[in-house]
Every structure is written in structure tokens, then in C-alpha cells.
């Protein structure tokens, strides 16, 4: 059994919150450059120019990339040979969020759903735990903005609808969302599981790097086909028209009930802020 102190989790999480909101991942920066080079419309190129200047400024000034610094979402793999001293892991993560969002001058966006009263410290975080072999703690953090989350949907298709039904639902969703979720977006897709599990698959898929290739060749082909079709919608950066409506499509799949075909589409704005740390 290995023991780590809760304070180590708190400090790590605080740092992750601040750094994620300040430094845009390299794969996202690279995709801006590649996409901008393909765009012919001046308006589309101007959006990429502003977004590039924006991530450079955020890095130089320490200001967040976006004022919506997100709800704090975590995927945590807890090694079964690991013990945390001083506090349970959930509480330590929430404490880290409090610290990071205060010290990093990040916006506190968590509120009561009905009274809309702000919780004032961006907690509670949304945390998905998994128990894994070994004695490590792997923490993945995502600062999930509300605008793109609002454009996300889950549906229960009939099994007969199959891939054509999935394809149609995803295309319709992105077409309907239009300029609202800050395109170019990244589309996370969860297929299978249950009504509640499909969106978790979709969200977790958004943690993948933009330039990776799905290890499952069938899913990799589906991702390529969908990305091509989505970009033919022509919505473009910020909805101003262009070749880049989406930067990537990431699909995760899990077996489901013989009666069901659950499908979740989790939309991520271009400011895809996430990182992973192993303790």
C-alpha cells in the first residue's frame, strides 16, 4: 500500500485548474494553424488570427484564455494499492478547485440550478472515479464551458437506426447549434452503455488529443467520415462561414442493452482546456 497526502492532491489540482485555463494545449494550437491555412474566407482567417493572438496573450499575461473558466470536470483513476491520508479524494479535489479558482483569478461559474445563487468557489466539481490496478493516482481535468455544453444532447435511438441514424443525429445537432457553441468545435460522441453512461463516454472522449488516431480502426474510420461531413456544413469559425466547423471528432463506444442504442453528443468549444497528471 502506498500513501500520499491529501495536500499533494490539493496543490496538484489547483495547479491543473490554473494552467489549463492559461495554456492552450499544443495539439489545439497546431490545429488552428492547419485550419487557418486551409481557409479562404478573410472572416474565417481573422477568427483564427484572433484566437492565436488570444492564446499568446493568455500565456504572456496570465489571464484566462476565456472568461468562462468552466465547471471543473475530473476523470480520476485510483490505484487500488493507494491510500490518501488526511482527507478523502473527493474532498481533496474540491479543495484543489477552490484553491485554483481563487488563486488563479478564475471565474466561479457553479450555481444553484433554481435560485441561481453562485456557490462562490466553483465547487462542487463533477468527478468520475474509476478503480484501477496499481498504486498510482491519475487525474484528468477539463474546464468545461457552458456555451458548448448547452449545445450537447443525448438520445436513445432504435437499434435499427444504426450508423446512419447516429451520423444523422450528430450532423443535425452540429447544424442546429450553428454559431452558438464557439465553433470550430470538437465533437465527443458516446455510443452505447445506458442513458447515463453514453454522455460520460462522450465527455471522456474529449480528453483525447486532437491529432491522435482511434486505436479501433472501425471507430477511426467513423471519426474521419463524420469530421469530413461536419466540415461540409460550412458553418465555419464563429459561424461566419468557412471550411472549419469542427477540429475533431472523438468517438467512444461500449456495449448496450439489446433494446437500445444510446447516443450522446458532447460539444466542446475551440478552447479545449484539459490536462492529465499522475501522482
Amino acid at each position, binding site marked *: 500500500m502506498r500513501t500520499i497526502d491529501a495536500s499533494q492532491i490539493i496543490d496538484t489540482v489547483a495547479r491543473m485548474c490554473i494552467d489549463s485555463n492559461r495554456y492552450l494545449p499544443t495539439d489545439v494550437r497546431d490545429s488552428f494553424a492547419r485550419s487557418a491555412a486551409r481557409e479562404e474566407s478573410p472572416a474565417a482567417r481573422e477568427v483564427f488570427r484572433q484566437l492565436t493572438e488570444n492564446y499568446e496573450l493568455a500565456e504572456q499575461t496570465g489571464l484566462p484564455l476565456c*472568461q468562462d473558466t468552466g465547471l471543473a470536470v475530473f476523470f480520476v483513476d485510483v490505484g487500488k494499492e493507494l491510500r490518501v491520508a488526511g482527507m478523502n479524494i473527493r474532498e481533496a479535489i474540491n479543495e484543489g478547485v477552490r484553491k485554483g479558482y481563487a488563486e488563479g483569478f478564475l471565474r466561479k461559474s457553479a450555481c444553484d440550478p433554481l435560485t441561481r445563487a453562485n456557490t462562490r468557489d466553483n465547487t462542487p466539481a463533477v468527478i468520475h472515479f474509476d478503480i484501477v490496478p496499481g498504486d498510482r493516482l491519475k487525474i484528468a481535468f477539463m474546464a468545461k464551458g457552458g456555451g458548448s455544453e448547452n449545445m450537447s444532447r443525448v438520445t436513445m435511438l432504435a437499434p435499427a437506426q444504426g450508423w446512419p441514424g447516429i451520423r444523422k443525429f450528430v450532423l443535425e445537432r452540429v447544424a442546429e447549434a450553428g454559431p452558438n457553441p464557439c465553433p470550430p468545435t470538437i465533437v465527443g460522441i458516446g455510443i452505447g452503455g445506458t442513458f447515463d453512461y453514453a454522455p460520460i463516454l462522450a465527455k471522456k472522449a474529449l480528453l483525447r488529443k486532437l491529432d491522435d488516431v482511434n486505436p479501433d480502426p472501425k471507430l477511426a474510420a467513423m471519426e474521419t467520415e463524420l469530421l469530413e461531413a461536419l466540415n461540409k456544413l460550412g458553418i465555419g469559425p464563429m459561424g461566419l462561414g468557412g471550411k472549419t466547423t469542427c477540429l475533431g471528432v472523438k468517438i467512444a463506444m461500449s456495449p448496450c442493452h439489446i433494446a437500445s442504442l444510446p447516443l450522446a453528443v458532447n460539444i466542446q468549444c475551440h478552447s479545449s482546456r484539459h490536462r492529465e497528471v499522475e501522482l
Partner: protein
Amino acid sequence: MAEHALQTPLNDADMLKLRAGDVVRLTGTIYTARDAAHKRLCDLLDKGEPLPFDLQGSVIYYVGPSPAPPGRPIGAAGPTTSYRMDTYAPRLHALGCKASVGKGKRGDAVKQALADHKAVYFGATGGAGALLSKCITAAKVIAFDDLGPEAIRELTVEDFPLLVINDCHGGELYVQPDRAAAGLE
């Protein structure tokens, strides 16, 4: 597509010359308000009480900025999605508000209000919060401090970069998705 430098407060003549797609550099005073603040503004109107700022010629920016770090007037300050304010916007335009700033589509009632009251809807680049923050030289909370990021702030802006998305002549900049090209039809 023309470029305009505009100064607040805005007037009908300013609005009439703007066309969807025009670039505007805005200088002057604008007011922040998003979901919760809009609800409170309309509650005040219902009760016949005065608003915390003068709507005549005003520009409302849909933003909930991040906190100001030491030495800066404000944190990151890019636009939020506008459709959530569609419920309230026509009423504010009827009372003299000349423009809103946000991102994303507006409903038909808002577009009609823009035409009826000679107002426009501006888009700013979503997710460029650090960049847009540079154009804000002063900020102070003038109402609803308890709302935190959703409080109403008076901002002083210089050459704030905007695009006319919906003008008062029925023009719109956003493109319709090409469903046929994507294989949807």
C-alpha cells in the same frame, strides 16, 4: 463590408448606416449583463423602478468576466451565448437600448425588435477573452454585486472589435448550414 469607428451613446443615424458584416470599433461606455442581471432589470421595469443605467443609446455586453488580477481593470471578458437573453432583449430595445454584444444566433422576436427600434446585434469573437480584455480600460460594478460574475459592470472600452451580425434592415451575417453538402438531405 465597411469599417466604422463608433462612440457611445449610439443613435439612430449610427444604426441606420450599419450593415451585417460591417466591422465596428467601439469606444466609450458599455454595460455588462447576462442571464441573472437581465431578469433583475426586467423585474425592476415591472415594478416601475429606475434601472441602474440609462438605456437610451446604450450598449449591453453579454459577458460574465473573470476576476480582475492585480494591476488590471478586469479579467478575461469575451462574449457569452446570446439566445439566452432573447426573452428580455426586445423590451430593452423598445426602451432605447441600441445594441447588444454577444455570440450566436438570435430569435425572430429580437430581429424584429432590431428593425422596429433601429438597433443592432454585434458579435465579438467567443473564446478570445484575454484578447478582448485588452480593449477594456476601466470596469466598475454598478448593480447587483451579489451576482458575482453576473453583476452589472460599467466598462470603458477603446476600439472594441465587433462585427455586425444582425442589422436593423433585416440583414444577417451568419450562414445557414449546407445540409445537402453534408449529406443530410
